[in-house]
């Protein structure tokens, strides 16, 4: 057992040294910690008696301290101690360069880890990457059996989803046909090997709308997009090679195993996205979410090639997705959203082939708050869920229609219908309640006292209905953010901490630019909230946030409202008709059945 002597060369401060002493003792060393306020001569005397392998000193820098430290080294030299003993010094503002200048074998500044000190003692190289890259990918749905816990709701969802399946299985759409073609005839391995995709586009283009048709027919690009130059592509490869050599990833979690933290990217440019993703990963994000432009969801068909876009949202093309996927750290979960438009099933197929871990599908949100025709969204959503199962991709069922004004119980009823449908089809849905100060909350004063109870109630309510993973989003704290960077980071962190103490599986967080609409989100704004969440997780550890009794009252009301909503959907007799009738969100509540893809659903027997 190696002997370590620890001496605070300071009149008062020895806390850091005590922590190091404890860590070394736990690691199996024989440690001896001297009291503060000894003279250099007294420390040398103790060293001669104890015969340590290593002497560790601590000292806060101040006037005259450097001279004192240098004197310590001189005395140790004179006593012949340096022949068989190493001396290290640590403390606030100590840098390794300064320590070396003064004659020490090592210097340790603020934030020194015990592993770093052990490496010094043992004479081995300290590799911080080993300490910081211990993250591995995790499947958010592991451990959930999707058992219903509320018999009444289960029975209603069962009848509604039977009706959806009976209806959808007989129908198709251009989106479904493109997905079928992409699944059967687009070989990702051949494409990656630059061996072409055969006559895929010959069959694909006729299934597309005007924009992709012009693209495939005459090379015409969307006016806000351009192709990258070869110089830019080469520059990216060089940048990635250099950055990956330095890359390591932090963990935001402290003592809890979860939640995993996701943030969204979608600057419009896949190369800028990669820069943002690397920053997010380095500062601790566990997953990233691909955000595509709003026009992409209203366009029949996907484009191709390396395309950059001047506005929000990065265009979904095989090349864009592929380059982003290859730039990800091995531990990073990657979600490609498919939830809201005319390319839902094909996006799931493409994302699955390229290697996405997760997708996002919600028939009700896509129909009521994202502009897609309810019949089209239903048939496309049904097939998208089947493809999500085929490609082994769990998906979240987002409830952002709440942001339009749809009450939570109606949004949740819709979410549970889609989750129930997925469950029946053998897919792995993840429930995504919105942690937000939504219009319903504002109008009814549901958060007048605090932001905790109503959000906690959502988790309590959903857990009482279905044993499924929970991923509050998207992002948490929606409509509580302002343009104030400190406020925005704070509210994100507190909502994430609430989610953590409710033991959910993941959270999506915004940047501190969430409420700023004057320009693109900046990389430092993403780091702001990651740091704030990390600090929040550190603060709470395994301690909790206690909702008031009102949370259970809200939860009971939510469950009751969900069941009544499902009763109304059943009374309609037809799911698509129920969407049009406002059962899952009415026009008065801000839900408007979409028109994109209207009349594009065909019966399979007529095509």
């Amino acid at each position, binding site marked *: 057992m190696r002997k370590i002597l620890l001496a605070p060369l300071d009149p008062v401060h020895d806390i850091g040294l005590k922590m190091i002493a404890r860590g070394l003792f736990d690691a199996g060393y024989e440690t001896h910690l001297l009291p503060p306020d000894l003279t250099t001569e007294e420390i040398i005397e103790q060293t001669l008696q104890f015969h340590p392998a290593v002497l560790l000193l601590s000292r806060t820098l101040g006037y005259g301290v450097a001279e004192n430290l240098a004197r310590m080294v001189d005395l140790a030299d004179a006593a012949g101690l340096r022949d068989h003993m190493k001396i290290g010094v640590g403390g606030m503002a100590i840098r390794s360069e300064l320590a070396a200048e003064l004659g020490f074998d090592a210097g340790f500044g603020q934030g020194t880890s015990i592993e770093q000190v052990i490496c010094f003692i043992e004479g081995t190289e300290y590799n911080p990457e080993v300490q910081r890259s211990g993250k591995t990918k995790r499947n958010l749905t592991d451990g959930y059996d999707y058992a219903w816990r509320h018999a009444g709701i289960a029975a209603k969802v069962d009848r509604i989803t039977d009706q959806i399946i009976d209806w959808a299985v007989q129908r198709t759409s251009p989106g479904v046909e493109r997905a079928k073609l992409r699944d059967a005839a687009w070989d990702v391995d051949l494409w990656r090997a630059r061996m072409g995709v055969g006559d895929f586009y010959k069959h694909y283009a006729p299934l597309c709308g005007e924009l992709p048709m012009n693209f495939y027919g005459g090379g015409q690009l969307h006016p806000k997009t*351009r192709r990258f*130059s070869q*110089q*830019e592509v080469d*520059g*990216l490869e*060089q*940048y990635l090679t*250099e950055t990956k050599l330095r890359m390591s990833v932090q963990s935001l979690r402290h003592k809890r195993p979860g939640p995993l933290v996701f943030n969204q990217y979608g*600057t*419009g*440019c896949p*190369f*800028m996205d990669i*820069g*943002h993703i690397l*920053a997010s990963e380095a500062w601790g994000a566990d997953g990233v979410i691909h955000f595509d432009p709003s026009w992409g969801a209203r366009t029949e068909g996907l484009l191709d090639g390396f395309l*950059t*876009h*001047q506005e929000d949202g990065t265009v979904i093309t095989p090349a864009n997705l592929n380059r982003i996927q290859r730039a990800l750290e091995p531990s990073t979960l990657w979600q490609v959203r498919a939830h809201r438009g005319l390319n839902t099933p094909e996006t799931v197929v493409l994302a699955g082939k390229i290697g996405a871990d997760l997708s996002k599908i919600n028939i009700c949100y896509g129909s009521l708050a994202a502009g897609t025709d309810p019949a089209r969204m239903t048939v496309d959503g049904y097939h998208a869920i089947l493809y999500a199962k085929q490609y082994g991709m769990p998906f979240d069922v987002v409830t952002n229609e709440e942001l339009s004004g749809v009450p939570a119980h109606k949004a949740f009823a819709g979410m549970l219908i889609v989750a129930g449908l997925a469950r029946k089809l053998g897919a792995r849905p993840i429930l995504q309640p919105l942690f937000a100060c939504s219009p319903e909350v504002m109008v009814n004063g549901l958060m007048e006292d605090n932001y905790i109870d109503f959000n906690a109630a959502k988790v309590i309510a959903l857990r009482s209905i279905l044993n499924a993973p929970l991923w509050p989003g998207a992002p948490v704290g929606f409509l509580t953010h*302002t*343009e*104030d*960077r400190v406020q925005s980071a704070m509210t994100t962190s507190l909502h994430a901490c609430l989610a953590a103490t409710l033991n959910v599986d993941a959270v999506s967080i915004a940047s501190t*630019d969430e409420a*700023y609409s*004057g*320009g*693109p989100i*900046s*990389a*430092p704004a993403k780091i702001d909230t990651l740091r704030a969440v990390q600090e929040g997780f550190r603060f709470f550890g395994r301690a909790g946030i206690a909702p008031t009794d009102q949370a259970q009252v809200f939860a009971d009301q939510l469950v009751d409202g969900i069941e009544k909503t499902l009763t109304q959907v059943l009374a309609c007799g037809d799911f698509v008709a129920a969407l049009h009738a406002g059962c899952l969100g009415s026009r008065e509540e801000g839900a408007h059945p979409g028109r994109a893809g209207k009349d594009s659903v065909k019966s399979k027997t007529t095509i």
Partner: protein
Amino acid sequence: MSQSLEKVMDAVDVETLLVCDSEAEGRSLMLDILKGFGFTDVDVVFAQFEGPGVRIRGRAYVHRPADKYHWLQQAGKAG
């Protein structure tokens, strides 16, 4: 563009407290400061006026998405 600015991934933010009489004056001052630094694509992200002045954050975009990023062209060169 200076070699240092070429290393900016996307934007430079400037946060400070400006001694002034109103939020509008503070916003104008911040834009002047950013333009004085030589930036052209400038905006005020946040401003909060209280008696002593305005707590303000200005932003200058050095690289917007779809621009040609100097930090990509500079990859491989000594920083």
